[in-house]
């Protein structure tokens, strides 16, 4: 294995004769946030996720396209990277795909993207790729923005100086995109092309040649990127030793890194930038003016808090009417089913199991849609990067990487993509630390549980001008952030010790969010939500319904007891009921009765199952006639044997805290297992979160009781 990789590591320029029987491979490479995925979507007709912050794409995606006169090609979208020495997980994917390392096939052609409004630094990566002599098309994206900003680019001159074809396109408006693939096809037949004439100091050339690699570009890459402890060193120790010697023997005015990079930027500034004329420079851009308000030194932070509170109150009140509609629809469906189906077990199963269970989760669809609308707007406008900027100080103080805030924010949507998003961090320690705390942020799966409990147990509307429900929900979000930060501080000083990593955050310009992008994000998550409702939650609901419905009580006994009593006893004597009672001693100190225990058992597969189970628990045998009550009302009415209500505000709070902290999501554990490549971390995550949940709920319930609450 390592032998093959060695060959690839140093064998890049010796590209074999074109292989006819496989599709050609064309990769889309470029710095982060330059619109690679937007362009890919246009070319391949896909709908991959884009967003206005660096690091949206963390995995390569390929699509097969049929090109006239060429045949099928594989177009590959890659994560962004500023240079070929990128060290973070997703940058490595991009570099490996370009250099054909680690199991990637060598590309036959490269589309290297630059943001036409930032050529001053985006051309750096393009130069590195051009030096490799792989057939390359330089694509200047965001031509629309460049025109608007008065950036005028002489494409012919730029192309001549680079020694490679250059095109200007806009992935947003579609300008120039139709020409791209035919030109890429042309590349596949193009003759060898000279590397751009970058004037490296003689000492650099000498050092590069001393490595004895078949291509100078590769030698320069090795001088910059192969170092002690890097992956390349393990792959090719002999090369690493030669690099070490060349670097030590380097005899230039500055050190070798600065000399190599400086020579490239010298070429950009002296030879390339004259092709770019900015007719309108000096004036304050729109982005600067918006930033002057949104990240203002004095009110920037306050504004951030206000925005968050409004969003969360809105999440509650704006979706309420829609929730009411869905609720009554499901109620009507259940009633309708009861009217149609004959009495008996089938009717019970369909109405109480299927409809009540899955329906009680579906009720939250409007809220999920709204949450994702809001997150999508923040992401695609560019505000998300500003939040990272505003929060960095706090992140740093608990030892989290500056980039950890973006995964943590997307954790509010769902922890699974958030765990994947930790790839934007270079060090294992930063990644793992973030992964260990991301599941503490309130994901959308908790929303159904919270909405149910808050709506059922706390007063709606303004109580003396205090919007209790919204504040409570916003409070849970703040609580979860606080716990995540404390957990990071503790874990970062114990289990995952390490230094703070420097921050380097690009602040993209504000852009008008695109309807399509935001809609895509909403639809994606909604689909996951619906699929989950249709599979995991449905399956769990059926299992839990069966557990709660069996063993069936005999007709005679049911008659003897009367309908009310029979239902209660049957639930209590069911398998599920017995299970709940078995764990009751463990959860009673938290204020939960065995019925909640049944819900908790289901919730460990996925949190939404709790709501579904409660739908079944309180639907089973309930008097479901013309006064078909909603789940909220049933919860409010639920009482202990002695008449005390089961769900006091204190119990509700304890339960919400439990849901905030406990690790109740199989998908997250699976994702952590995948990303850490070990069982240790998911097990650790599960144990520490669930223990924390128990302890906090215990403290809250017992503390509250001691203070005379609930």
């Amino acid at each position, binding site marked *: 294995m390592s032998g093959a990789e060695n060959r690839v590591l140093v064998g890049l320029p010796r590209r074999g004769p074109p292989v006819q029987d496989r599709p050609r491979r064309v990769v889309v490479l470029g710095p982060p946030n330059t619109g690679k995925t937007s362009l890919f979507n246009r070319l391949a007709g896909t709908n991959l996720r884009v967003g206005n912050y660096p690091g949206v794409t963390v995995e390569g995606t390929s699509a097969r396209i049929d090109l006239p006169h060429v045949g099928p090609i594989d177009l590959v979208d890659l994560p962004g990277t500023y*240079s070929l020495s990128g060290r973070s997980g997703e940058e490595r994917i991009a570099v490996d795909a370009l250099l054909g390392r680690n199991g990637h096939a060598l590309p036959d052609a490269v589309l290297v993207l630059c943001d036409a409004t930032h050529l001053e630094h985006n051309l750096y990566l393009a130069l590195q790729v051009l030096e490799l002599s792989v057939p390359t098309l330089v694509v200047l994206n965001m031509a629309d923005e460049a025109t608007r900003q008065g950036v005028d680019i002489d494409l012919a001159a730029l192309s001549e100086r680079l020694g490679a074809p250059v095109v200007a396109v806009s992935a947003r408006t579609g300008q120039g995109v139709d020409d791209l693939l035919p030109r890429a096809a042309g590349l596949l037949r193009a003759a060898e092309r000279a590397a751009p004439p970058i004037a490296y100091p003689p000492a650099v050339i000498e050092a590069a040649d001393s490595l004895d690699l078949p291509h100078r570009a590769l030698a320069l890459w090795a001088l910059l990127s192969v170092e002690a402890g890097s992956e390349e060193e393990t792959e090719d120790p002999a090369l690493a030793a030669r690099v070490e010697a060349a670097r030590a023997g380097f005899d230039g005015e500055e050190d070798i*890194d600065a000399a190599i990079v400086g020579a490239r930027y010298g070429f950009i500034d002296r030879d390339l930038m004259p092709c770019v004329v900015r007719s309108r420079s000096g004036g304050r851009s729109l982005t600067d003016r918006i930033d002057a308000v949104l990240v203002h030194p004095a009110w920037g932070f306050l504004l951030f808090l206000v925005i968050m509170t409004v969003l969360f109150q809105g999440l509650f009140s704006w979706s309420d009417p829609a929730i009411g509609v869905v609720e009554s629809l499901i109620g009507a469906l259940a009633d309708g089913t009861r009217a149609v189906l004959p009495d008996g077990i089938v009717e019970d199963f369909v109405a109480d199991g299927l409809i009540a269970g899955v329906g009680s989760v579906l009720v939250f669809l409007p809220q999920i849609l709204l949450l994702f609308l809001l997150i999508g707007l923040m992401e695609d406008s560019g505000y998300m990067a500003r939040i990272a900027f505003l929060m960095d*100080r706090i992140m740093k103080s608990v030892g989290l990487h500056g980039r950890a805030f973006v995964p943590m924010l997307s954790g509010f949507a769902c922890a699974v993509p958030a765990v994947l998003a930790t790839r934007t961090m*270079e060090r294992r320690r930063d990644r793992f630390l973030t992964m260990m705390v991301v599941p503490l942020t309130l994901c959308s799966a908790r929303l159904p549980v919270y909405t149910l409990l808050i709506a059922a147990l706390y007063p709606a509307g303004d109580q003396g001008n205090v919007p209790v429900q919204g504040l409570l929900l916003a409070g849970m979000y703040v609580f979860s952030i606080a716990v995540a930060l404390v957990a990071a501080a503790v874990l970062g000083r114990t289990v995952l010790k390490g230094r703070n990593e420097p921050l*380097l955050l690009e602040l993209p310009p504000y852009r008008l969010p695109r309807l399509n992008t935001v809609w895509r994000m909403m639809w994606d998550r909604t689909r996951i939500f619906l699929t989950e409702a249709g599979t995991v939650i449905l399956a769990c609901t059926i299992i839990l319904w069966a557990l709660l419905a069996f063993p069936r009580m005999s007709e005679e006994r049911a008659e003897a007891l009367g309908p009310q009593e029979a239902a209660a006893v049957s639930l209590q004597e069911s398998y599920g009921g017995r299970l709940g009672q078995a764990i009751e001693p463990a959860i009673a100190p938290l204020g939960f009765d065995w019925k909640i225990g049944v819900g908790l058992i289901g919730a460990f597969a996925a949190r939404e199952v709790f709501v579904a189970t409660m739908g079944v628990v309180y639907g089973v045998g309930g008097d479901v006639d013309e006064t078909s009550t909603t789940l909220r009302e049933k919860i409010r009415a639920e009482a202990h044997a002695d008449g005390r209500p089961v769900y006091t505000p204190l119990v509700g709070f304890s339960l919400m805290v439990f849901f905030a902290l406990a690790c109740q999501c199989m998908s997250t554990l699976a994702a952590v297992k995948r990303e850490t490549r070990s069982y240790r971390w998911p097990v650790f995550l599960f144990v520490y979160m669930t223990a924390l949940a128990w302890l906090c709920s215990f403290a809250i319930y017992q503390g509250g009781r001691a203070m005379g609450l609930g």
Partner: protein
Amino acid sequence: MDLPTAETLLGSPQGEWRTVLGVRGERAFRRRLLELGFVAGTRVRVVGVAPLGDPLKLEIRHGNLSLRKAEAAGIEVGP
């Protein structure tokens, strides 16, 4: 640049343009800064500070970048 008290980006007044003279720091991070364009001769300025006092917002090569004060102290600048 030979003076021990060379001006750094941290000490440069907000809004005023400076010229990068050199970058100090751990190799990987320094390489990253270099590759982002912090090479000798490049114009750069501090345009803002985050509300909580850190990090800084910089303008360089027509783009905005955010860097913590600790690292900005490693970027030597001249007029």
